[in-house]
């Protein structure tokens, strides 16, 4: 099945579930996710109880649904004990119908791999693993604050490949001092490992991280944007040659093995968010609603115990906000932005004049009989600008 077939197959009734596990063994210096280290004393049973409460609450909001994907991310969810994971998945199954073909992904870090544990994950229902490899160079792994070595990562990939039918590797490139040749070398090694899916992100310094402070103090130098761009171009070329098509700005897969859950996000589908700091987009009473949970694990739990949920945001999305999200997500994917769908959902459409201008400049192209707008090769480098251009030229259909 190729990407466009998948697109045809996609319909707005797909429903995914994201579960956030907010704990890690240590906090990586570049990380601005909602993750916390030094939670030695957490009781996994408490967290599980919180999850289960939330599932019941969300079920009351969404009504009955068929689940097409589950993604357990973090944080480091591979710290979860298999029985806890088992109960979690069961709770989900009891509330909604989980399709037999549903994609069920768990994120894992190579530093806490055990064969037995991975087998147990597989047996409770996980059918896809996303491994946070990040680098295959010890020096860089250390600089990134990772607790594993390149060797451990390779062993881990080996084990994973044996147990899971489908897995993905995460890597970070455009690291300080990395050269184009370094990355070429490292990426070809990654490609030789036989993974079917790669998420390749550029290192970005986010506010509030340790790296951001270091950068302010002049102790950390990020790569020249030109070099980062060259690396990006190289990445596209090498992954394509290896048969892993880019289907989103930073995601590559053997056609047919794209992450269903990611696609759900990028197509602005419906998904419930469970766990501290989890976001969701659900349809309730005909409205598309953005939900967000309390970030801090203790507060999250306390709120749930108090009122049965930990929502800190429950906001009806306006037409314009929905349009913005469709554009943000759509332009980053190879599928592109479906203009028909945009018009149907948001009753808004980018100004024809603007679109024509961007098409003439060779940044965008039409596909599927003018129904879809896609970013062309040279537009990818300025995709954020293109998003802004389209999103600020919206007019009623």
């Amino acid at each position: 099945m190729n990407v466009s077939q998948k697109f045809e197959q996609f319909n707005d009734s797909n429903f995914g579930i994201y579960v956030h596990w907010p704990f890690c063994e240590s906090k990586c210096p570049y990380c601005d996710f909602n993750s916390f280290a030094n939670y030695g004393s957490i009781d996994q049973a408490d967290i599980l109880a919180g999850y289960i409460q939330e599932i019941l609450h969300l079920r009351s909001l969404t009504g009955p649904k068929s689940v097409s994907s589950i993604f357990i991310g973090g944080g480091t969810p591979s710290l979860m004990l298999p029985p806890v994971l088992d109960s979690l998945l069961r709770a989900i199954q009891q509330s909604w119908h989980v399709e037999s073909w549903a994609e069920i992904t768990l994120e894992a870090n190579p530093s806490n791999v055990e064969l037995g544990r991975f087998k147990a994950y597989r047996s409770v229902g996980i059918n896809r693993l996303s491994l946070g490899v990040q680098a295959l160079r010890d020096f860089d792994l250390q600089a990134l604050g990772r607790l594993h070595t390149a060797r451990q990562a390779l062993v881990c990939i080996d084990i994973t490949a044996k147990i899971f039918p489908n897995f993905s590797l995460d890597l970070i490139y455009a690291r300080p001092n990395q050269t184009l040749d370094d990355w070429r070398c490292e990426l070809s090694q990654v490609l030789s490992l036989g993974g079917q899916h790669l998420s390749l992100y550029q290192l970005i310094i986010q506010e509030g991280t340790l790296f951001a402070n270091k950068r302010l103090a002049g102790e950390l130098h990020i790569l020249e944007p030109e070099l980062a761009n060259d690396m990006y171009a190289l990445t596209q070329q090498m992954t394509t040659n290896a048969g892993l098509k880019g289907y989103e700005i930073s995601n590559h897969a053997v056609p047919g093995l794209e992450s269903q859950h990611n696609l759900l996000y990028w197509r602005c589908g419906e998904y419930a968010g469970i766990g501290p700091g989890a976001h969701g987009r659900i349809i309730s009473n005909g409205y598309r609603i953005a939900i967000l949970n309390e970030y801090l694990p203790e507060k999250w739990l306390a709120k749930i115990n108090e009122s049965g949920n930990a929502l800190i945001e429950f906001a009806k999305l306006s037409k314009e906000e929905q349009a913005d999200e469709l554009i943000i997500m759509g332009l980053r994917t190879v599928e592109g932005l479906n203009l028909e769908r945009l018009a149907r959902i948001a009753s808004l459409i980018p100004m024809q004049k603007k679109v024509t201008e961007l098409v003439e400049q060779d940044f965008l192209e039409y596909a599927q009989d003018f129904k879809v707008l896609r970013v062309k090769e040279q537009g990818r480098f300025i995709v954020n600008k293109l998003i802004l251009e389209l999103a600020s030229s919206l007019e009623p259909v």
Partner: protein
Amino acid sequence: MTERSYIRNFSIIAHIDHGKSTLADRLIQFCGNVKDREMRQQLLDSMELDIERGITIKAQTVRLNYKHRDGRTYQINLMDTPGHVDFAYEVSRSLAACEGSLLVVDASQGVEAQTLANVYQALDYNHEIIPVLNKIDLPAADEARVKTQIEDVIGIDASASIPVSAKTGVNIQYVLEAIVERLPAPHGNKEKPLKAVLIDSWYDSYLGVVVLVRVFDGVLKKGQKIKLMQTGSAHSVESVGIFRPKKEIVKELGPGEVGFFTAAIKEVADTRVGDTVTDDKNPTETPLEGFKPVQPVVFCGLFPVDANDFEDLRSAMAKLRLNDASFSFEMETSVALGFGFRCGFLGLLHLEIITERLDREFNLDLIATAPSVVYHIYVNNGQMREMHNPADMPDPTLIGHIEEPWIEAAIFVPDEYLGGVLKLCQDRRGRQKELTYTGTRAMIVYELPLNEVVFDFYDRLKSISRGYASFDYQLIGYEQNDLVKMSVLVNAEPVDALSMIVHRSRSELRGRMLCEKLKELIPQHLFKIPIQAAIGGRIIARETISALRKDVLAKCYGGDVSRKRKLLEKQKAGKKKMRQFGKVEIPHEAFIQALKMQD
């Protein structure tokens, strides 16, 4: 009504921060008029901006009763005058309404340029001047030096100056004594027909327009039908009163007295500062001299950032004008900026005050275009036209010659910054008239074209002298110069709001700076943008903004689309604040920022 010989009218001349308000507070307090706490708010105008900037925009008066050591009680009227050159005419009317002035100089600082201009004006009105050396409580106070300075620079006798501390109250009684003993009593005859000068007026939501006057001859009382001689309108006086500083109704005002009246006048614009108020049936034969209709000196375009605010802007301006007849506006359209107004101001400070009030009190986001002076354009047939807006410049082939307004500027500056200031004046086409020293400070007098001053001269002067230079100016007339219109083309299209009139000799430099500035201010687009400055069809400067070719892209963001959307919303809001010009978006602050020069 107080007998003339027991009346004294005076104003206070001082540079900002030298202690005018503090001294006034002390004098009021000494005469026992108000409780301490009430004082400040009452004396000063209630306008927030006034207090913050330390300047008075509206003239204020307060009547004090002072019991002199001769046993008699005197009526002393203190007139607080606007303290800035923009309001020079208003100052002159206030000065014309009194017989003497206190010259307050901070004894730790010395004389400043502004003081100088006002003292000369006071001398023109034959004022008796009493020098007051303030802040003698400060260790840095140097009475002897400042006395010499007053004598050298201003040229008045300072031997009888009074050292005081307005802060601690030291010697305040001597100031009051001097006012009674050294200032002349006003002249006037109460049997003659009413003759009073209109010092100021403002709108009061309860009383309508309140008119501040000083009576020279005759009597002003309730019920009287009065006439404003310049406007020719007649009104029945509804109330007559004085400020103490609280409003207090009195029966009448006689010769020498200062006070207010109300007469169901609807708009401040119906009352003109400097006009003569007389009795409608029995008018004076000799109206007061020196009346001048107010003339805006500086013009600029004000456009709402959000086109939907246009009507709000119009009504806000109308409201401000209610109280400030010297501010004028008329509708203007600009290709670049859409609908807005061409506004006239008395000067730069006035412009700033108005735009700040529009922003602050009316919450309007505005784009201001470069201030322009009033040019005299002589067309080929010899006729003269005034031009307020570079966009209105006729075709050069139709123009005989152009004249521009010149000013005489007095600048005081400490030695060490003199070089920089001279260079600034020279660069701005100045002609040096005088250069004198007093101690370690220099006073320079320059003739300068107003169009070189109108924009950022004052900012530059302050920054060159680290805030130590003081500056004052007056218009001296029009002069023919080689002036040209410089237009700016962005992506090959002229942007009318950026065009300006410059001297030919300065055009290339200004053009180059403008293009460089715009290059910084206009964000990169998806295509490259040429920026050019041109005179007629000739390009005199150019820059190019390269096309955007890279952007951060492969960021990991998972399911958190909210964050991305919020960022996008911010960017969209920023984009809304840009002005679409052809295919190019120009941030609205660029219109004013681009013109700031780094000499």
